[in-house]
């Protein structure tokens, strides 16, 4: 996917965000090809919709400009690129040698929303409820973190 590489190359964060949206959209198409319609829909709604809107709003809110190269970034580049490349080559080598090239038929999976719902609400009911609590906590944490610190004096002071 060219979009993922573009995310790295772009120096302006808004361009990276747009290429990330391209990656999300192509991944949704990939899920559709695999027959996972529910996951594709959720991918478009949650990732390309909600999360990317959050990112873009934050970028605009903070007026993010081009990033500048620093000493630390050069060190990270020098150390990071060879290490990551070695890891990538290892993973690719393992995949291409060890896997017996089994094929996945296009649209093979019964990704019906009804089947997934049955699984989600019967077998995975407890994790589902736990994630709802997690989401609630995350929302409250985000609101607390992003809200401005309150001015200390609120209401009539006792000693004034």
């Amino acid at each position, binding site marked *: *996917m060219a979009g993922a590489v573009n995310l790295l190359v772009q120096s302006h964060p808004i361009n990276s965000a747009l290429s990330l949206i391209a990656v999300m959209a192509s991944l949704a198409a990939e899920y559709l090809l695999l027959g*996972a319609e529910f996951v594709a829909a959720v991918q478009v709604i949650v990732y390309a919709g909600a999360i990317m809107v959050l990112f873009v709003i934050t970028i605009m809110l903070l007026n993010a400009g081009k990033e500048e190269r*620093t000493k630390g970034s050069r060190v990270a580049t020098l150390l990071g690129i060879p290490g990551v490349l070695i890891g990538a080559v290892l993973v690719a080598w393992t995949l291409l040698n060890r896997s017996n090239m089994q094929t996945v038929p296009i649209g093979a999976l019964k990704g019906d929303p009804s089947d997934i719902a049955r699984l989600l609400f019967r077998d995975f009911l407890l994790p589902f409820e736990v994630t709802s609590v997690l989401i609630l906590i995350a929302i409250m944490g985000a609101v607390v973190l992003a809200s401005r610190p309150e001015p200390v004096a609120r209401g009539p002071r006792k000693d004034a």
Partner: protein
Amino acid sequence: MVPLSYYLLLSGILFVCGVLGFLIKRNIITIFMSIELMLNGVNLSFVAFAAHWHALSGQVFVFFVMVVAAAEAAVGLAIIIAVYRTRETLNVDQVNLLKL
């Protein structure tokens, strides 16, 4: 018919791009987007394996990963806003208050 390893390879490429971005980028928002890219790569391999083994549990797990990613994005961006408010920068090299 697409070989399973192609999907895994694509997922690995996405993950490696995320790791590279995490290491190279200095903008905190772009680093955050790299994390999302890594999560997406893992999701792709989940769905590919689910299709391969004809098991729907993989898709349910992708759903959970997405939920956690959404929560993490909300909290992380709130933290970024708070950091920007106090430090006036988005460069992670300048957020060094914890350094000795």
